[in-house]
């Protein structure tokens, strides 16, 4: 008989349930180094097939299984069971509309992402080979290219909770900064113009929940400050 672990999961099916509820499960601790996603998979495959959540790569690269774990946002696939207080409480990402159980509607989040035009913009004719960067220029992108847009930071940000209709949120601003810093991009001015706004950018009050939440260990607050400093340098 293996050791059992206690877990409570947020359940909500808008078509059937009047309101959300927490459902308790007992799952055997099958192997060392078990991740939270393994537990969810066990429940789905052996206990309750109706449990709904997103997952894909299972190794922290695709960003599908962002959820709120014991009150902190993170990726289920890289969150170890060891060290989590039991019963483990799993809820969907905060401040997003729930489609079902742990699956949230990310339409608005990715709509904001498209607004910053997250692609290389260049006025020069396409070169015959690669657009070259020096190793130093490439190193500028460290700390932002790793972002997988899982939404853990943005949905942990109180400024985004209160003003998410206009504030871009940490993930999108980190991505915006990634393109501002890119030596090959020639739309820096337009990008800064678009962000110079009391709500889109300056609603960040440096609460730093984003940094705490990021499963990749990135620092969106620093990226936002870099955008602010770049705007300052442009002005003065």
């Amino acid at each position, binding site marked *: 008989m293996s050791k059992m672990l206690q877990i409570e999961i947020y359940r909500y099916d808008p078509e059937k349930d009047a309101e959300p509820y927490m459902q308790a499960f007992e799952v055997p601790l099958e192997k060392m180094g078990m991740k939270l996603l393994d537990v969810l998979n066990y429940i789905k495959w052996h206990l309750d097939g109706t449990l709904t959540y997103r997952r894909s790569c299972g190794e922290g690269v695709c960003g599908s299984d962002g959820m709120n774990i014991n009150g902190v946002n993170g990726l289920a696939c890289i969150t170890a069971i060891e060290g989590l207080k039991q019963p483990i409480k799993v809820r969907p990402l905060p*401040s*997003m*509309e729930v489609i079902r159980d742990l699956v949230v*509607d990310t*339409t*608005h989040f990715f*709509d*904001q992402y498209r*607004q910053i035009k997250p692609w290389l913009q260049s006025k020069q004719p396409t070169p015959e080979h690669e657009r070259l960067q020096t190793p130093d220029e490439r190193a500028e992108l460290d700390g932002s290219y790793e972002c997988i847009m899982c939404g853990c930071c943005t949905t942990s940000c109180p*400024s985004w909770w*209160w*003003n*998410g*209709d*206009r504030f871009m949120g940490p993930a999108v601003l980190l991505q915006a900064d990634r393109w501002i810093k890119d030596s090959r991009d020639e739309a820096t001015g337009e990008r800064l*113009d*678009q*962000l*110079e*706004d*009391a*709500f*889109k*950018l*300056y*609603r960040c*009050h440096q609460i730093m929940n984003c940094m705490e939440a990021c499963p990749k260990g990135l620092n969106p607050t620093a990226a936002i400050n870099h955008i*602010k400093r770049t*705007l*300052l340098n442009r*002005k003065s």
Partner: protein
Amino acid sequence: MVKKTHDLGSAHSGFKDWYWQRLSAVVLAVLLPGVFILLWSVYIGALDQFGLLDWLDSFVSRLLHTLLIVALIVHAYMGLKVMIEDYVHTGLRVVLIALMLVMMSLFGMWWLALIWAWGG
């Protein structure tokens, strides 16, 4: 919970607020301790009433005092404006911010009158 973004473009307004809030914070950080040193000097008896008035009466003191009160009002206005914008999501927001601006301006003018009219 929002599904669709209403992209109204950039208002090009955030930078100045941010800049003035930080500039006023630096002025406050430099000048406010002076006020507390004066108060403390009175409290420990190093400065009597006339000594304090001598300090406040001097031209440089009045200039610094003016700078302090302007920075204080700018800083309070910017900070409270951001808080109102954060939490008040109706048209009431505009009214509240405008009301605050008028009241703080009045308070500032009254204080400036006190600073410069003192002792004639």
